[in-house]
């Protein structure tokens, strides 16, 4: 008889319903044990002890560890990683003259490899202001190239920031949080723990209190940003950190801050500091 398959179906439907309830099923809790090695040579740190400033979490994990095997495999080879076509496009942009000064990125910086390590220290404070990689690119464009600023999460900017961040792939995130950076970091931390929106959720409610649990059918990560800019299967393009923050805020029915706003820049610094020691994965692949 076909009773057995039906019983199984019921059981899995029940498991599914339980999973919807934002509570841990023992089978789904936590990150998996997979190890990320890219192109069979580059070992990526996806798990390490939480930085000293972090009270609520002992071990930090890359978002890669929360994804399915199929999604994980997309990041294990640069010819499987769909983000790399956009990194290639950015390499062309790197050589392309734009603006009144007749310059390309390459005119001053020559090889993009010169930016190896840059991503690990961003955002950082320059002349009293917190700057992100996006700010640095647009500063070059408007002040030195005489070109128009690129849109924060536009195709060109997300590809270019992916290319520059990619130069640091495999290096540990290491942003400054004291000195000049302290007030920005404090603001970011405050935002991280402040409940907002109709659902009255703070970043911490999902990504600190409930990582590893299911939110509907999705496996919650710690919300680390060491893989950004990251390719998402959801929209099949490179996503920026601020674009992702915006999406999160919309999902909890809050009015998002603007991309490039002081709030999101401070939040970016704070969230980056929660991932100190994880390898830069840019461009990562997530669902």
């Amino acid at each position, binding site marked *: 008889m076909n009773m057995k398959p039906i019983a199984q179906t019921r059981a899995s439907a029940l498991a599914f319903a339980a999973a919807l309830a934002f509570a841990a099923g023992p089978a789904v809790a936590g990150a998996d044990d997979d190890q990320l090695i890219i192109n069979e040579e580059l070992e990526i740190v996806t798990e390490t002890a939480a930085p000293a400033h972090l009270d609520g979490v002992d071990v930090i994990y890359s978002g890669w560890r929360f994804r399915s095997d199929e999604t994980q495999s997309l990041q294990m*080879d640069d*010819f*499987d990683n*769909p983000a*790399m*076509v956009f990194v*290639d*496009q950015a390499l062309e942009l790197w050589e392309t003259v734009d603006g009144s000064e007749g310059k390309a990125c390459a005119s001053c910086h020559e090889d993009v490899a010169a930016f190896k390590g840059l991503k690990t220290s961003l955002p950082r404070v320059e002349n009293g202001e917190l700057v992100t990689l996006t700010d640095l690119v647009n500063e070059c464009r408007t002040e030195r190239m005489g070109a128009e600023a690129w849109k924060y999460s536009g195709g060109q900017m997300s590809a270019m920031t992916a290319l520059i961040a990619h130069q640091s792939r495999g290096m540990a995130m290491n942003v400054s949080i004291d000195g000049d950076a302290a007030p920005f970091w404090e603001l970011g931390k405050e935002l991280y723990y402040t409940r907002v929106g109709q659902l009255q959720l703070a970043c911490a409610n999902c990504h600190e209190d409930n990582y590893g649990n299911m939110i509907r059918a999705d496996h919650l990560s710690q919300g680390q940003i060491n893989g950004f800019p990251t390719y998402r299967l959801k929209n*099949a*393009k490179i996503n920026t950190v601020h674009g992702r923050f915006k999406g999160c805020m919309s999902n909890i029915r809050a009015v998002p801050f603007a991309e490039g706003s002081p709030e999101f820049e401070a939040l970016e610094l704070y969230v980056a500091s929660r991932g100190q020691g994880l390898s830069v994965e840019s461009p990562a692949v997530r669902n």
Partner: protein
Amino acid sequence: MASGVKPRVKVPKSASAGETITIKTLISHTMESGQRKDSDGNVIPRSIINRFVASFNGETVIDVKMEPAISTNPFFEFEAKVPEAGEFVFTWYDDDGDVYEAKKSIAVN
């Protein structure tokens, strides 16, 4: 879709004669399915790459008829026999008549 379409192809630089090698190809393309609507409720017209062909020294390796169910930024992985040194040619055919091409040479040792 003519602008910004970019192929990316992985072919080993060399092989031994008669060896079977693995090839991966990826191309940036929205693959607009024709099933979606814009914010005004109008159907966004289909615009996809409808065919992909890989050949080596003029002989076909694989010829794929592609439908709108192929994901954005189409990816293919397949195997090819390399009887002698030569050149792989990869060709993608767009609904709009554009043709995108990538070539990779392989040495035989």
